[in-house]
């Protein structure tokens, strides 16, 4: 059921689409302007690339754009034909398919890691083999304590050296600090936007950014573009609050964890028809973290370890649940919609522990929708709609 991008009348959405288009255009244009392209695993910090004036390309994120446009299936099928199991995550398969199709900007280097998932880890290894390009694996610890931050800091340092060496470029401490200053600024503004979304009623809709409020600070972290974008969104939110130009809000929803890019119509019904406003997406939730441009690598390690990865729900479970507790309280959530992306082992298997905790500690209902973030073949639209209707009848 390929659907066109659900567009609504929103300056924020318009600006966001431009930002995303320019972001990927820079990767496609990189060769022409003499820049290097680095394929990055989902959520690895873009700052590493910008420090060396290289362009990051996130195949899974690009796959998401393709899913939004209804053209992702050919990449998924290319991966399946090659021998990747049908059961593998569709986002991961889209990355493999992009590499196999040769339709993506070819990498000059690959940076991979284990989270988000093992499947992704294996596919990025394959990408490096396929393109015969240098590959560095950033080892992300499972724990998030000070020892883990220190370990990751060492990994990021190695990754930077690796990129500099691969590109024959000079690594400049000065440049790193500049990038981290911008990164810190974007992170702060991202938090400011999140703060504004806490307001009742919340001034922004999730669909305006296709549920990806984390996009600029994650993939454009370290650029002026990200800073400007969040500043723009924050300003627009403040204007709406000031002028009382806020979308109607009947329920406050936490969407968790990932927003299905092949199935955005569901967000549209929720927010526009049911006036059930998604005031936070679990994947984009970030706590305030210590960032100090004087300690650039440690800051980057913190940002990566504490802000980016855990909210995805990779575990440990105890840690994930604490995140939910905080969001549910901070955002005054009425209900949680949990999108159990079939391809994701960790997301699906967290359903029971999250649902039980929300019911026992907060008496908050959680609707579980089975589906697929990218693969339109696995999203029975009518069924999902019926489940949502039932759920809201129950909430009445």
């Amino acid at each position, binding site marked *: 059921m390929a659907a066109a991008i659900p567009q609504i009348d929103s300056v924020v959405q318009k600006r966001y689409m431009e930002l995303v288009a320019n972001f990927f255009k820079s990767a496609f244009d990189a060769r022409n302007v003499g820049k290097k392209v680095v394929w990055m695993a989902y959520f690895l910090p873009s700052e590493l690339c910008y420090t060396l004036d290289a362009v990051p390309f996130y195949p899974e994120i690009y796959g998401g754009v393709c899913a939004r446009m209804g053209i992702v299936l050919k990449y998924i099928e290319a991966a399946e034909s*090659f*021998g*990747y*199991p049908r*059961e*593998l*995550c569709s986002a991961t398969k889209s990355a493999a398919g992009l590499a196999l199709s040769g339709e993506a900007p070819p990498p000059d280097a690959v940076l991979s890691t*284990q989270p988000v*998932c*093992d*499947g992704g*880890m*294996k*596919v990025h*290894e*394959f990408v490096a*083999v*396929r393109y015969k390009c240098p590959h560095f*694996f950033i*080892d*992300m*610890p*499972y*724990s998030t304590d000070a*020892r*883990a931050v220190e*370990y990751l800091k*060492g*990994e990021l340092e190695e990754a930077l050296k690796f990129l500099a060496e691969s590109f024959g470029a000079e690594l400049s401490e000065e440049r790193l600090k500049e990038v981290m200053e911008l990164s810190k600024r974007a992170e702060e503004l991202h938090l400011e936007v999140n703060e504004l979304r806490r307001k009742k009623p919340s001034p922004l809709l999730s669909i305006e950014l296709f549920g990806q409020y984390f996009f600029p600070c994650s993939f454009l972290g370290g650029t002026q573009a990200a800073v400007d974008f969040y500043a723009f969104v924050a300003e627009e939110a403040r204007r709406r609050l000031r002028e009382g130009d806020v979308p109607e809000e009947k329920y406050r929803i936490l969407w968790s964890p990932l927003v299905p890019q092949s199935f955005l119509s569901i967000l549209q019904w929720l927010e526009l028809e049911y006036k059930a406003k998604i005031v936070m997406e679990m994947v984009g939730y970030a706590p305030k973290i210590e960032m100090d441009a004087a300690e650039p690598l440690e800051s980057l390690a913190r940002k990566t370890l504490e802000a980016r990865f855990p909210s995805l729900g*990779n*575990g*440990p*479970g*105890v840690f994930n649940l604490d995140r939910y507790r905080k969001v549910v309280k901070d955002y005054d959530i009425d209900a949680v919609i949990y999108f*159990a992306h*079939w*391809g*994701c*082992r*960790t997301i*699906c*298997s*967290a*359903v*029971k*522990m999250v649902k*039980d905790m929300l019911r026992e500690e907060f008496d908050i209902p959680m609707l579980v929708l089975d589906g697929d973030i990218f693969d339109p073949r696995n999203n029975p639209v009518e069924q999902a709609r019926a489940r949502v209707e039932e759920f809201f009848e129950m909430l009445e």
Partner: protein
Amino acid sequence: MMLERVREVLDGREAVARSWKEQGKKVVGWICPYVPEELIHAAGMLPFRVMGAPVTIVKGDAYLYPNICTFNRVVLELALGGRYDFLDGIVTANVCDHIRRLYDAWHFFVETPFKLILSLPHKVSENAVAFFRDELSRLKSDLEKLAGVEISDAALKNSIRTYNRARELLRRIYGLRREEEAPISGAEALEVVKAGMFLPKEEYVALLEEIFESLKRRDERYEGSARVMIAGSDLDDPGFVKLIEDSGGLVVADDLCTGSRYFWEDVDVSGDPLEALARRYLSPVLCARMHPYEAHIEHLIKMAEDFNVDGIIFEALKFCDIYGGEYPLLREWLKEKGLDIPVLMLDREYVLSGVEQLKTRIQAFIESLS
């Protein structure tokens, strides 16, 4: 017969744990071979590998999800049903996405007195060794508390020596399978390795000495129309190996964490024992989860060449992303190196099922080798 004791253990592994507990001692379960058993052993407790059994998954699907591999769902089913109530502790590591969630479910929904998941690096570097040594040091002090003893370096080294002895004997037994006509079948070899994951190590070492001696003298010999190696994800079912051997192949080697990978490498006994353990258990040979992945594939190919195999059966549990993802890498590797070793990819469930289809594939593969 010499395998009598082995089969007795496999038929009643809980009985082994119970008789140990009757002596007033504790049992600690481990999931995945990244948990250094030596530490549990040195604390005077019995390390016990957590495995599945043929059960119908009911609760396992409610607490996990049907897109988790059946090994993990079966294990959780057993744990929720009380089959692992005798454990005083459970230790695992963040080996894969599935195990991580199994641990979470165990943490929230199964009452075991002590539970721990180790943060296990994905690569081998001096930083990683130091990091993992810290993790093991935490495990050591937790185990000391649980057992109420202190683990001295001397005791730990002693445990390491016992474990190394068992490893050496297993390697010798595997060595006998290099011969044209092997004195031990693949299914039997798996049984022998598996028994060691439940038995007290001293008893196991004595048993292995006996088995090795009698294998050298054994008249019964096995042969097949092709020499096969099994590689891939968690496989502890001798019945699966037998399916291959009944189809005409002789399984002479494996690259499994329930087989050769479990004992292929020793722990260094000189120097700091915790660091030695960290180094040994961070091995890329133990599982395809590690980096660089080439190290694991090299080991696999070397094994295939050493044991002169005609073909490799590469099996992955359905939904296993690590081995499902390693297969394309292995294929590219063989192509790149110009190696002409036929590989059959099979996906399977933890509890043997779909036997007819499996049999057809396996038999057709063996027909194509001979």
